[in-house]
């Protein structure tokens, strides 16, 4: 007996070794449960961060727009409207008023990491007889490329557009029959026309976006859209994407401009994420409950089997509290051992899964997060669950009347 080990530890481990079969079975059961939790948690968090990235890589977290224009009908002296019918105004393309000042003000705010001015509007690309409607976005590469992962999606050329450059999607390039270095005419509804050189081709992995988006330099877009010196919107990223909505509301209050967070514009995506998280929580809860019931039932049986030994221990000077701790410790150890084995099993399943779930090109279907903290939480959680499950059997053991127990 190691002198460093407390009495309760020695008793608990001996009892568990004595009931080897029971211990192995319950540790196996807990391990299976924990492996399911580890596997599903990693899968779902991988799935979520994947979805999350797909959403946020191509979308600013907050977009600041000029306030909508409203119709102001004439009123009489008593503030009564004189018009019978008030039509809402058409929203023309306008600049964010004094956007440079707004940008500087935003950059001073806590949590704001990037502010990129953007000019965007509708236009056509024209080459010979072919033309396609596109959304053109004028960007300042130095700020915009920090905001959106455009760089990663460039398959030819570079994302650094200058005033005579244009970035097109791979589908649009195919439709127009153009390649890197070719010229393309861009015309907007407001009458601006420019002939630009293709300096980069991107692939967003989405046909619609690849067909309809083009990027030009900020100033080119300003002149094409007749918005000289202006910016149709400011796009903002913040340190914590989930605080975007609160920050957007702050911005709206401070500037009087319209600020839309990605959370508000992707409400459905968010409710899907929440539903996934909820189902994950429910699975964890029931697996945890099953493990707890298993541990409790094994210990209840053990208390009955060992009632004579417990009585003997009590007669030879072991206190109720010590008996209580011996059984709580057994529950904790079963939980801990189960979680360690289960974490390894879960890790094994994940590795296997990564080998099986692949795209046609051999890349993983989606990246699974191996968060080492997940293993730590599983171990801590299972130990806690084991201890809680042991409370009832341990109390039973501690309350055994030694005189009765020894008589049997």
């Amino acid at each position, binding site marked *: *007996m*190691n*002198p*460093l*080990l*407390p*009495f309760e530890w*020695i008793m608990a481990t*001996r*009892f568990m*070794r*004595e009931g080897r079969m029971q211990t192995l079975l319950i540790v196996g059961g807990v391990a299976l449960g924990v492996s399911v939790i580890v596997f599903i948690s990693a899968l779902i968090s991988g799935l979520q961060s994947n979805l999350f990235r797909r959403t946020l890589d191509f979308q600013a977290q907050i977009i600041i727009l000029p306030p909508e224009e409203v119709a102001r009908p004439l009123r009489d002296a008593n503030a009564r409207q004189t018009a019978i019918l008030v039509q809402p105004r058409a929203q023309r393309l306008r600049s964010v008023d004094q956007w440079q000042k707004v940008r500087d003000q935003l950059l001073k705010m806590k949590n704001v990491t990037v502010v990129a001015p953007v000019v965007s509007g509708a236009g056509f690309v024209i080459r010979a007889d072919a033309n396609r409607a596109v959304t053109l976005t004028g960007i300042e590469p130095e700020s915009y490329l920090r905001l959106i992962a455009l760089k990663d999606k460039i398959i030819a050329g570079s994302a650094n557009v200058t005033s005579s450059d244009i970035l097109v999607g791979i589908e649009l390039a195919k439709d127009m029959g153009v390649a890197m270095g070719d010229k393309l005419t861009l015309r907007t509804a407001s009458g601006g026309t420019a002939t630009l050189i293709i300096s980069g081709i991107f692939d967003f992995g989405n046909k619609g976006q690849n067909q309809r988006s083009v990027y030009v330099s900020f100033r080119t877009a300003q002149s094409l859209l007749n918005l000289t010196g202006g910016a149709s919107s400011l796009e903002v990223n913040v340190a914590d994407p989930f605080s975007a909505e609160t920050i957007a509301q702050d911005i709206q209050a401070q500037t009087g401009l319209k600020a839309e967070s990605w959370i508000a514009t992707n409400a459905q995506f968010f409710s899907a994420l929440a539903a996934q998280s909820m189902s994950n929580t429910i699975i964890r809860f029931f697996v945890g409950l099953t493990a707890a019931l298993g541990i409790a039932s094994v210990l209840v049986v053990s208390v009955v089997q060992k009632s*004579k*030994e417990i009585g*003997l*221990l*009590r*007669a*030879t*000077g*072991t*206190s*109720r*509290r*010590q008996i209580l701790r011996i059984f709580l410790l057994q529950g904790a150890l079963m939980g801990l051992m189960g979680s360690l084995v289960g974490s390894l099993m879960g890790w094994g399943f994940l590795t296997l899964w990564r080998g099986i779930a692949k795209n046609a090109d051999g890349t993983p279907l989606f990246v699974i997060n191996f968060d080492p903290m997940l293993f730590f939480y599983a171990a801590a959680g299972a130990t806690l669950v084991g201890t809680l499950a042991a409370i009832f059997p341990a109390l039973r053991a501690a309350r055994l*009347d*030694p*005189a009765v127990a*020894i*008589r*049997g």
Partner: protein
Amino acid sequence: MVEPDDAITLRLEGIHKAYGVGTPAEIEVLHGVDLILKRGEFAALIGPSGSGKSTLLNIIGLLDQPSAGKLFITGQPTEQLKDLELTHLRASEIGFIFQFHNLLPAFTALENVMLPRLAALGHPDEAMRKRAAELIDKVGLTPWAEHKSNDLSGGQQQRVAIARALVMNPALVLADEPTGNLDTKSADSVFDLMRDMNKINGTTFLIVTHDRRLAQRCDRIIELVDGRIASDKVNSNVLKNGDDTTQVADDMVT
């Protein structure tokens, strides 16, 4: 109370024990037991089945509470003590030897002897191992010290139990049919061992037994009948001759 208190290991005053109090099935098994055991006594508690021997032993061993009456262990009153204090008093002053299931099967003979000290101290140490080894040696089981208790014979198990009962140096050892499970030869040698320990250490022994032959070899024979002490005799022949005689048996019948 002629003797000073430290010479008295155990004092019982008017011990009553009733079960099922307040129910129609209420039954009183002990009807006012008075008893004094002096230090170093080697006493037998005999009586027919159902006479309350085991109940009395459990009360003396602080495993059960009397319904009424007072119990003093080495002069200390026990009425007001809480469970934890009773446990500590039991651990330091009382050793138990039972008929069956004396030892924990998952532990070796030596570890079983260490157990009471281990529980009291909270963790093992070298001193307790040494003390346990000494006792194992005294009961003649050194070659079996590292054997699991299940691998020992009945007599050997009872010897281990005696060693364990003595490991805390208690004032009183309570033995409940310690030889009830053994053949005559083993029973004799276990009995002799208890006798030796009593002589060497001066530990008080109270032995519940059905075996009149063994009772006759004790210094004092207390007979319990229907929850009352029916006779309490000093077994003078043993003191004189150190062996059992037919005369003692005749005394007890009267």
